[in-house]
């Protein structure tokens, strides 16, 4: 019996467009359990990033209810959202988003600073995470001294550092070649097997297959998919 970690009920997101509102998410219902590896698969413009922003507490829905880790996210202010992100979410982006002036270790330490870990704790955790993603010999390298795949692994270490409730990845292999992408996906599988809950957003069905559950996003509507079909 697995535990329910997030629940979206009738989430609607609209953007004002001239006189009318442009409805991007048209009533999303979604439940994710602890330990799941979920892919959200959808074509460009279907609203994947919009959904991810709400899932990641970067944005709030126009209407509907979003419960994350027993907490209602729908109507929180920026400060509260920042605290929730710090505790609950580990982001992995398509373009890595590492700070170029910082070393790999310092990049991994960033979320720990905002989660108010002490200096020595930060150092220990960052090193542990970099070892976990196989970069024990690249701790002091800057992003421009690392390959794309290595950079994405630094980003994964960073996402893992605060031990968040969910890992949220938006097209994590979008900037990588096939074999490097495959390595990253294997890392995801490993992390999931260790118990991490992962939500991955992608338009690529071969990547989506690494998950153990797929939902299809089409024109702002979510339908349950089948891993075997994808």
């Amino acid at each position, binding site marked *: 019996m697995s535990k329910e970690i997030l629940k979206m009920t009738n989430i609607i997101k609209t953007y004002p467009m001239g006189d009318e509102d442009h409805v991007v998410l048209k009533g999303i219902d979604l439940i994710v359990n602890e330990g799941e590896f979920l892919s959200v698969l959808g074509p460009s413009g279907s609203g994947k990033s919009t959904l991810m*922003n709400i899932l990641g507490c*970067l944005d709030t829905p126009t209407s509907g209810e979003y419960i994350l880790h027993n907490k209602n996210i729908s109507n929180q202010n*920026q400060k509260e959202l920042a*605290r929730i*992100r710090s505790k609950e979410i580990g982001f992995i982006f398509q373009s890595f*988003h590492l700070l170029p*002036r910082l070393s790999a270790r310092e990049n991994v330490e960033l979320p720990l600073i*905002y989660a108010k870990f002490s200096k020595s704790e930060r150092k220990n955790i960052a090193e542990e995470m970099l070892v976990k993603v196989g970069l024990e010999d690249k701790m002091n390298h800057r992003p421009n001294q690392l390959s794309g795949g290595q950079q994405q692994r630094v980003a994964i270490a960073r996402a893992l550092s605060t031990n968040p409730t969910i890992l949220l990845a938006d097209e994590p292999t979008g900037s990588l070649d096939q074999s490097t992408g495959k390595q990253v996906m294997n890392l995801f599988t490993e992390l999931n097997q260790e118990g991490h809950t992962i939500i991955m957003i992608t338009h690529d069905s071969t990547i989506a297959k690494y998950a153990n559950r797929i939902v299809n996003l089409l024109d702002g509507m979510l339908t349950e998919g089948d891993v075997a079909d994808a």
Partner: protein
Amino acid sequence: MLRETIKMSWQNIVNNKMRSFLTILGIVIGVAAVIALITIIQGVIDELNQQFLDIGTGKVNVQAYGTPLKRGLNNSDIERLAEIENVAGVSPNLSFSSTAVKDENVLEDITVDGKNEVYFRTTKELVSRGRNLNILDMDSKNKVAIVDGELVENLFFGIDPLGETIIVDGTTFIIVGVLKKDLHDDMIAMVSAGDSNGKVIIPYTTAMTMAGLGNITSVDITVKDTNYMSQVIDEIELVLNQAFNFKDDSFFILDLDSLVDAMEKMQSMMTSMLTGIAAISLLVGGIGIMNMMLVSVTERTSEIGLRKALGAEPKSIQSQFLIESIFLSLLGGIIGVILGLTLSYVVSNAIGMPFRLHLGAIALGLNFSAIIGIVFGWAPARKASLLNPIDALRSV
């Protein structure tokens, strides 16, 4: 958290060395100019005040040119001046330059000052050894002299001058006292501080006879209570007008207290002018900082978005940028203070004035620059803190 924020801010300044330097240049120049000007002006004024203090306030100098019919003040005029209420004493100034002879040694260009007993009473710690001139010396036109250290050095070569004789202007004097070194002895000497090889003070009555003078053209009047200065000056004016039949330009009254007042006024005027200049230059510097911070926020939009996604609260983004701007302007302030002090040190030395450190000016410079950092960093920092993380992350 604060330490990390400070470290991040510092890193960013170091990463943009050239730009940071150009940005703080305005503040550097502003602070340096203010520090240098305050230090130099204050030094000049301190120096002048010190000279005035040496002479002693509460003195009025009267230059009595007189009229073609009557040159200078006679004894009864001086007595009338001395009888004015609140006047402690009247001391004539009579000075000429001459030659002193001791045995075979001749010393040219010495100053001979004729003074009375009042002079010694109203001038603090004048004679270091020997005695002052007294009223008996005046009345009997005694041929006694007080010499200064320079004359002793130039003429006595280690011999104790007390009790020795010296020939001044052809007249033999007995030395009864030695002056302290480095004494600004009266206002006139200060204004016309010519180079002389030494000084001899003799009874003014003796001096008048030697110079063939009947009247005195310059006296110092000491006032008992400076609160009555203006009344005393009015009385002096009355006495002099009567003495010279109300003739224009027959006399001139110079009182030290009003000079000091005028100088204080000048100082406060200078200070407010400086404050104005400082305010303008710091405003310009502040705008420079604000500009750099706004550029920096725009450049780092995606970094701000990322930090927010990773859990940074708006508050910590704001403090990061605010600290960075305070850092920048404080750095400018520190460099400005160092530059300003160096400048004023060099200038002080060049014009031969003692260099004094003005902690007030330094504190002012540093405080001002910190405030500039806060005031002009506020808006950019606020802007950064309000950035929407979604928009910020997209802008890559």
